[in-house]
């Protein structure tokens, strides 16, 4: 009996173990990656609390440093430019200094992409960001608040390319920019180069011919004490290294954005190695 009580108490103590809080930013890819991280941790036997769709970079980062969040997927370029504000630093070393762990790179580079409609691109001969000079007088840009506010966003781009647009950008929620572009409300938006919607809405991502945007290699950031919450957590995260290349990420994004499939299902397929095609037919 006594042994039974002890076991019960131990069991209670174990189940009271705090869950690992997994976050993500508020766009499809980040949510999918957050879900993948969460599922990976769960399959390693960890208890997970999902806080996906949390808001922008700064919200996620301050939640990490305050301890409200244990892990999320961040991009190297964002970390260097926007969080650390040291574009030349070594990101892993800089994170160690902040008491965080810059973990395994997932394998793709999701840099910013300046996106236009395909018909505009072919009519005005737009292939690279430099070509935007031809349409700067009439194009209406439209961006999320972060891209307008960030020093490595719109203003930096105008400066780097020596562009001057006649119209000030319209600012809106990031999630509405594709819809605004597709509805001819704006003519130029800033998206991510792995966005599935680029293909599905008939849009074109312009080539960053002056290499203005830094690399945005996705990596799992975690707090150093993550293994104390769940042994094997960091090992599970490590197994995500090199899981997705650019094309795979775009396909995974399209499964959710284009085909409107459930994030958890798509994440599960991506983890099991058949991201697109095969999984979709099986679902039918």
């Amino acid at each position, binding site marked *: 009996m006594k042994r039974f009580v002890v076991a019960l108490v131990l069991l209670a103590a174990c189940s009271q173990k705090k869950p690992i809080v997994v976050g993500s930013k508020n766009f499809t890819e980040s949510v999918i990656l957050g879900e993948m991280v969460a599922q990976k941790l769960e399959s390693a036997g960890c208890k997970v609390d999902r806080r996906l769709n949390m808001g*922008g970079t*700064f919200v996620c980062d*301050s939640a990490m440093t305050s301890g409200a969040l244990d892990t999320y997927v961040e991009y190297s370029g964002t970390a260097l430019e926007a969080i650390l504000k040291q574009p030349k630093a070594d990101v892993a070393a800089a994170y160690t200094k902040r008491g965080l762990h810059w973990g395994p790179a997932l394998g793709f580079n999701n840099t910013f992409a300046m996106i236009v409609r395909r018909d505009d691109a072919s009519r005005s001969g737009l292939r690279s960001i430099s070509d935007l000079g031809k349409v700067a007088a009439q194009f209406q840009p439209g961006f999320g*608040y972060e891209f307008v*506010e960030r020093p490595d966003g719109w203003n930096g781009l105008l400066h780097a390319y020596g562009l001057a647009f006649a119209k000030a950008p*319209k600012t809106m929620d990031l999630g*509405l920019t594709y*819809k605004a572009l597709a509805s001819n409300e704006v003519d130029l938006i800033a998206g991510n180069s792995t966005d599935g919607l680029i293909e599905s809405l008939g849009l074109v991502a312009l080539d960053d011919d002056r290499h203005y945007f830094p690399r945005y290699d996705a990596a799992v950031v975690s707090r150093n004490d993550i293994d104390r919450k769940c042994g094997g957590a960091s090992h599970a995260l490590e197994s995500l290294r090199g899981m997705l290349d650019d094309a795979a990420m775009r396909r995974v994004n399209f499964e959710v954005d284009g085909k409107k499939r459930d994030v958890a299902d798509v994440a599960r397929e991506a983890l099991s190695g058949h991201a697109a095609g095969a999984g979709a037919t099986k679902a039918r």
Partner: protein
Amino acid sequence: MTADIIRITGEHMLIVAIAVGVAIVLGIPLGIYCTRNPRAGRVALRVIDAIQTIPSLALFGFLIPVPFIGGIGMRTAIVALILYSLLPIVRNTFVGIQGVDPIVRDAGVALGLTSRQLLFDVELPLAMPSIVAGIRIATVIGIGVATIAAAVGGGGLGTFIFRGVAMVDTRLILAGALPAAALALIADVVLSAVERRVIKG
């Protein structure tokens, strides 16, 4: 910065004033219609309830491609805010008129009032406190909800809030949130004075 806050607060008030104004013009007749045609009225009230449950970003998503009322900018924000403001106004008009004592209504009928006279001389005056309360609720809530206008390029105090959230700049967030709170309080005080006056008749 102060000039910006004043200008954007003005923008915010404009959005709310237009939206609540239009919601009053549409909502009171709709509320009256609901009392006259109970079956259609029930459907209308359900639809208005359902609108309330649509998240604003989803509503914007629907509205952006719609010609005339959609797009990116203040117009779309106002349309959304009108839709959200309908519920308290229509509902309170409906409830206010329904709540008129049947004896009073019968007395009016006995006096030979036409249904038009009955509405304007008996039912609406008696329902007025409830209607004004609805307008008050719509306005106070509208001042808060109008901060989402910034999500669709519509301006208003949400602009500060969205920029502040994007940059984790608390001062910027407060520059949007505090004037909005002050506006809501002022509107509440003013409209509750109107409400008291209406009740005294």
